[in-house]
């Protein structure tokens, strides 16, 4: 219960950080998928349900197909393919789920004919691949941060993983 409340606050805080902080940078830093990284960490380290809810809310807020896809495909990947709680499993989960989202988005845009020649789509396509690459260092740093958090502060404030 307390964890869910904490995650909601974390989600809001990271959303503010991403929109108001990262997006004001006009280079690759603006492309860092902060909420996606955090969501994948939540899905692996805290709980499948919380992770799925995280991506579902993210997809609804941004009207983002990729987040919605991750919300559905992430739990399946986590249970069937990347069930280990290792760094490699985390990276695999993040890259495959995000890649699956990109492919789904591409197929959707191919099916919707009026979006095929859209300049916005071409721009976002390159940004998405940059984000896919940025997932690797992001998940690596995030994983270490969460492990440190679990060892130190986590137990003191009694925020124990529920799943």
């Amino acid at each position: 219960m307390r964890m869910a409340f904490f995650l909601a606050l974390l989600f809001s805080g990271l959303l503010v950080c991403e929109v108001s902080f990262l997006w004001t940078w006009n280079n690759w830093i603006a492309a860092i998928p902060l909420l996606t990284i955090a969501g994948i960490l939540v899905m692996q380290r805290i709980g499948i349900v919380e992770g799925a809810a995280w991506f579902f809310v993210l997809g609804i807020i941004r009207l983002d197909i990729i987040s919605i896809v991750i919300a559905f495909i992430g739990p399946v990947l986590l249970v069937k393919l990347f069930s280990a709680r290792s760094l490699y499993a985390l990276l695999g989960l993040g890259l495959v789920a995000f890649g699956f989202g990109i492919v789904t988005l591409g197929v959707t845009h191919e099916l919707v004919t009026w979006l095929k020649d859209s300049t916005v789509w071409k721009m976002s396509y390159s940004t998405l691949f940059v984000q896919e690459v940025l997932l690797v260092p992001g998940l690596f740093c995030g994983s270490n941060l969460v492990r440190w958090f679990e060892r130190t502060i986590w137990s003191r404030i009694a925020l124990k993983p529920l799943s």
Partner: protein
Amino acid sequence: MPRAWYFTEKTKKIAQRLAVFFGTLAVLWFLSTISWFAPAIHAVRSTVYAVSSVTAQTFSRIFASEESIARQRDLCLSQLAEQSSRAATLTASADEVEEWRQLLGYENRITREGIAARIISRGTAASSIVVIDRGSHDGVQVGAAVIVNNGLLIGSITKVGEFQSTVRLIEDRQSVIPAAILGQQRTIGLITGNEGAVVSMNYIPQDAGIVLGDSVVTSGLGGKIPEGLFLGIVTAVTTEQNAPFVVATVTPVHDSRDFTAVLVLSYAEIAPL
């Protein structure tokens, strides 16, 4: 009897967790819409944004390469040139709008029909003529008065083409405009050009009693140029002994080179007696 899957303890816990997660987000969203809480959220976001802007600027200054700085400088210079060009265009447009506005205001006060025209060509300094973009097709007549601003005469039409006309400015040597000095008494004469900044008013009787600073307007004689169009003020009076007339130097209050928009005042044709 086995319990349904949605009644198990695990399902209940999951439902509780989801309810807390979504409920907290919903409460936060609801709070952001309340007038007394929204400023607090806005303050947090603007603070984060300010921190980000300062950090981003600092980083870009520290790590920007010379090539990047040169590129930014070139960009700034090109933008400056573009803005300067745009500002000049806007200033010119504003001046023109003001000219048209004053002409329109004057046209509304007179009974004659005015034909709005634009100066499209200027003659050499020796000729003092300009060409406007209206001609007989638009109703321009030879001898019609050409005014600017709020009723200031700058010349008269000397030649009319189908779509353009030639205007002889009052400073042209061949220009002759019937005029009157509004002094203690109304004194009539003829304004002729001197190819300079001032014009001369001739055929003024010796006993006219002209005072420096008197206003000079058109007299309306001849019928083509209406009465009362302002020409300038008397700045000097030249008197020669034994001459029947005195010559007044009149300084126009305008410079025709400052204007691009003019109004041609049509007149009614008078049948010869």
